[in-house]
């Protein structure tokens, strides 16, 4: 379990897959608007929310992530017209499957954040990080070999 060196508290690892065309720019806007979001959130830029293979999410958990969030354009606003509609179905089924095998359902989330929604980006990340703090470290889906 990663602990904060100064406070000794649990510091989760949160992976955020952000669509290049909206959420990634939304994160930029949050930054330039000086809105704070936790440093525990690590952003991975993807060309579209649809680029996220369900395996990416499992891989993130395997490598020690405590929570994974996928951010994409609002339905109807996809840069590639329909990518996020496919992502929506895929993620619904994947999250349902994770719940089915007994992984706490708060560890995964999908949020639609546009490039103009810096505030939404920061509040979403704050909320999500708070949820992961509440759930504690992810012990059910991690690869033990990744631990030292």
């Amino acid at each position, binding site marked *: 379990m990663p602990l904060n060196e100064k406070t000794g508290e649990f510091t989760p690892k949160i992976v955020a897959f952000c669509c290049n065309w909206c959420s990634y720019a939304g994160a930029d806007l949050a930054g330039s608007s000086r809105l704070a979001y936790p440093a525990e959130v690590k952003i991975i830029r993807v060309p579209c929310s649809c680029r996220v293979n*369900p*395996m990416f999410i*499992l*891989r993130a958990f*395997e490598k020690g992530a405590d929570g994974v969030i996928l951010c994409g354009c609002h*339905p*109807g606003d996809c840069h590639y017209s*329909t990518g996020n*509609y*496919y992502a*929506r*179905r*895929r*993620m*619904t*089924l*994947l*999250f*349902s*499957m*994770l*719940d*089915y*095998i*007994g*992984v*706490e*359902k*708060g560890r*995964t*989330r*999908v949020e639609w954040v546009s490039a103009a929604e810096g505030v939404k980006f920061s509040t979403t990340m704050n909320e999500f990080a708070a949820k992961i703090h509440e759930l504690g470290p992810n012990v*059910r*889906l*991690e*690869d*033990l*070999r990744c631990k030292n």
Partner: protein
Amino acid sequence: MQELINRAKELLADGTVVRVLGWRKGDMDYNPEVAYFNSAEELDNFVYDGFCGANLSKYMIEASKLEGKTLVFLKPCDTYSFNQLLCEHRVDRDKAYIIGVGCRGKLDIEKVKAQGISGITAVSGTELDGPDSIKVSTIYGDFDVAYTDAMLERCHVCKGKEHKIYDELIGESKDTHDMDRMAAVAAIEAMSPTEKFAYFQAELSKCIRCNACRNVCPACSCRKCVFDSTKFDSQQKANVDSFEEKMFHIIRAFHVAGRCTDCGECSRVCPQGIPLHLFNRKFIKDIDELYGKYQAGETADQRAPLVNFTFGDAEPSIVNERGSK
């Protein structure tokens, strides 16, 4: 059975087909194997009985690349897989001559063994027109087992006796449906997350990664498979920890989500007896409930739910309401 052999010989003789894809006798009565027959003489080893559970649709992918037509025997549930492969342009309809064979449910030798019968030397009475109970001969004597008690789980949730695609039909089929298909999935859904986790941990830790479930699945037939990649963390080897097995099985089921016809081959071939169909069925259940009833392979011109969408689809957050408490 003789009727099938005679018809196959006729079709071979008049040149309609150049080979026959069917089942031949295995080393025991309960393990016939899938085989190609190229001549009338070879057909003497042909067998079709209650243990011929193997779905031959997948073999048609390779047979479609061969010269000439192949005669293939499909049971009602196998025709769904064939339709699905046709839909995905994996098999060539013109290269197949399909004889729809009758089926009264297929048997599972494990179900027989589970009744405390061991040392099995022979099983008889499993033919299509056989009696209601099968005769199991063992080194300890003979036993009678009711046909339905020895049936595969998938036959208790039979999709129906109707062949979805065929050139001709031989033999009468029976609808053996006598259980709720989604009951087992619903039972797991009702558990708490800790119980669910413990259940799947116990089941999946048996996995030896033999890849039989992948290899037998008609839907799982990519030429290049992600599980063969050396970059993938659970490549060809036994699991080293509890995560690998879950990753493998979630991905395996996800790759066939929306295309799985629920033929039950994965669970039938699993040497460890893992109920793999529970993963596939969970996806089917979710798809049915969220995106409308869908049966893969019902027809050959459907659009699978995961390559389709509607503007009003449920948001992924619906899992929070539907999932475990």
